[in-house]
């Protein structure tokens, strides 16, 4: 029999409804897996055994009473920048170590109401700034396909644990690729929904005009169910989308025959590793064989997307992170004056990457440099958005590799910020435009490391994105599981 920890969300939900499995048994299987893999992975920062077991017992009651929904009793992992009442929330930062939030974020509240079982809080690059989950004040997370390599980031804790069976699904946040890139490196599905589709209330802000919560899962179908559990207007987030929700999974089995699919040229050529490029091309050919009309689409302003992003995101971060000043929560280092206390607290509490981005953003926003840097970046953002809108006049979806490379060794890029930033080459444009995008695993390279395929669609075009993503998943037939995804781990 399949180890319940390896079940998909939809499969497990069916097994729970059919009473073939209880929520407590399912949670026990997941906790056993976590116990076996965590010493090698370090994907969780905290595990809430008691709370999870209590929720699992309530879930079993809900199934008995017939009140269960699609997420009732499903063990999930939450990135540790999603605030959870009564559960420590650190953003992987010393400045928030020990912080126990007095409220739940909206996505968390909806998941609790749906009866989902929160297994624990997962590791991330500090304040979600990074592409490897190495910038954590509490130690790096490792890739379940090869523990000497990074899981990607910043949501690497969630993607690593979902790949290894430490949860059936989970959530991360994506500001420049922080769900999709680690999903690609860990061989799982990762989705960045349309900006505004999921409330950001209770997501500790990094760059507010780019941040978006999204699901991580082991199948496209599971990612739809998870997203449906958190999407929708929220009066507590003024930027959340107020109109009718798009259909998410209505066309999953429609296939791609007759669809117009564009290869995003600037995201699929220069800088892409040959093995990734080859796997990408093979999948594009298969989509063509499946009846899609393939064309190449040029998005020239996207060549400067990375530059624009590394001005806009730090600018917003420097403003958002001003709230961490040693007054209301978190760390305080004493000083003679309030200003000295704040300066010492922040210098001590933030790690190097966060410090670098605060400085960068403060500079980009400061008098005399604003127009040349931040102002110009905002105009480039307009150009990029216009290019996407214009592209979607002639294609239904755009595709590219998700990450230029597969998982890289720990420490490989930590001394070279710019090399690390290039990890997000293919994913950043969708954050700037606000459009939805997802990564679907399509195979492995010569080293056995997963390769991801990115599907992009116009704003609120989730139905089209998932439709293409589901066909990519079917065509790839990617069934491999991470070597660490077993309850009997034996590593040297």
């Amino acid at each position, binding site marked *: 029999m399949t180890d319940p920890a390896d079940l998909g969300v939809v499969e497990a939900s069916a097994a729970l409804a059919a009473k073939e499995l209880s929520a407590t048994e399912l949670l026990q299987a997941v906790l056993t897996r976590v116990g076996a893999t965590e010493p090698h992975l370090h994907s969780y920062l905290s595990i809430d055994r008691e709370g999870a077991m209590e929720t699992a017992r309530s879930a079993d009651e809900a199934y008995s009473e017939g009140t269960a929904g699609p997420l009732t009793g499903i063990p999930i992992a939450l990135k540790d920048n999603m605030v959870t009442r009564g559960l420590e929330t650190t953003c992987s930062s010393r400045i928030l170590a020990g912080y*126990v939030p*007095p*409220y739940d974020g909206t996505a968390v509240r909806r998941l609790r109401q749906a009866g989902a079982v929160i297994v624990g809080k997962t590791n991330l690059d500090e304040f979600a700034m990074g592409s490897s989950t190495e910038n954590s004040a509490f130690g790096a997370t490792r890739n379940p396909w090869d523990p000497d390599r990074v899981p990607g980031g910043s949501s690497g804790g969630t993607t690593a644990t979902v790949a290894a069976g430490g949860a059936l699904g989970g959530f991360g946040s994506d500001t420049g690729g922080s769900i999709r890139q680690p999903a690609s490196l860990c061989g799982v599905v990762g989705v960045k929904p*349309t*900006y*505004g589709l999921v409330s950001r209330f209770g997501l500790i802000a990094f760059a507010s*005009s780019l941040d978006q919560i999204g699901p991580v899962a082991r199948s496209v179908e599971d990612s739809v169910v998870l997203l449906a559990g958190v999407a929708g207007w929220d*009066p507590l987030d*003024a*930027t959340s989308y*107020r109109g009718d929700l798009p259909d998410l999974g209505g066309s999953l089995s429609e296939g791609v025959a007759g669809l117009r699919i564009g290869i995003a040229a600037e995201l699929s050529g220069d800088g892409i590793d040959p093995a990734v490029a080859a796997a990408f091309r093979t999948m594009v050919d298969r989509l063509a064989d499946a009846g899609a009309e393939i064309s190449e689409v040029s998005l020239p*302003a996207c060549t*400067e997307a*990375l*530059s*624009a992003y*590394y001005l806009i995101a730090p600018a917003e971060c420097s403003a958002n992170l*001003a709230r961490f*000043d*040693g*007054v*209301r*929560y*978190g*760390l305080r280092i*004493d000083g003679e*004056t*309030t200003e*000295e*206390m*704040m*300066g010492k607290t*922040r*210098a001590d509490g*933030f790690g190097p990457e966060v410090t*670098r981005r*605060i*400085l*960068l953003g*403060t*500079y980009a926003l*400061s008098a005399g440099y604003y127009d*040349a*840097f931040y102002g*110009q*970046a*905002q*105009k*480039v*953002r*307009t*150009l990029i*958005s216009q290019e996407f809108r214009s592209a979607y006049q002639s294609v239904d979806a755009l595709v590219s590799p998700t990450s230029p490379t597969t998982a890289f060794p720990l420490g490989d890029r930590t001394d070279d*910020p*710019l090399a690390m930033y290039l990890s997000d080459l293919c994913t950043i444009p969708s*954050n*700037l*435009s*606000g459009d939805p995008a997802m990564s679907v695993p399509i195979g492995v390279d010569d080293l056995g490391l997963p390769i991801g395929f990115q599907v992009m669609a116009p*704003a609120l075009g989730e139905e089209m994105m998932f439709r293409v993503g589901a066909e990519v998943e079917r065509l790839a037939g990617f069934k491999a599981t991470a070597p660490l995804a077993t309850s009997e781990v034996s590593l040297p």
Partner: protein
Amino acid sequence: MPVDIDIAKVARLSRLELTPEELDGYGAQLEVILEHAGRVQSLATEGVEPTSHPLPSTNAFRADEVTPSLDHDEVMSQAPESVDGYFAVPSILEEES
């Protein structure tokens, strides 16, 4: 475009009390990053409006209803220092002599 950074000033504006060695290190890294980021200036943007937000949006209002606020004690339990239910900080005003 050559990048000229008064890193000590930027750190002061950022409320980050860094050591001289740290300032030197970050200053050098910022120069490299800004040189790359400065490439945004290579695109022609005459007449292009800046985008501050990805989707068109207007003021979002909600109904003006009284709802429970956060539990005061639970909030204050997270404060590094508090006095009588207030957040406490070192003296902000110079004491009168």
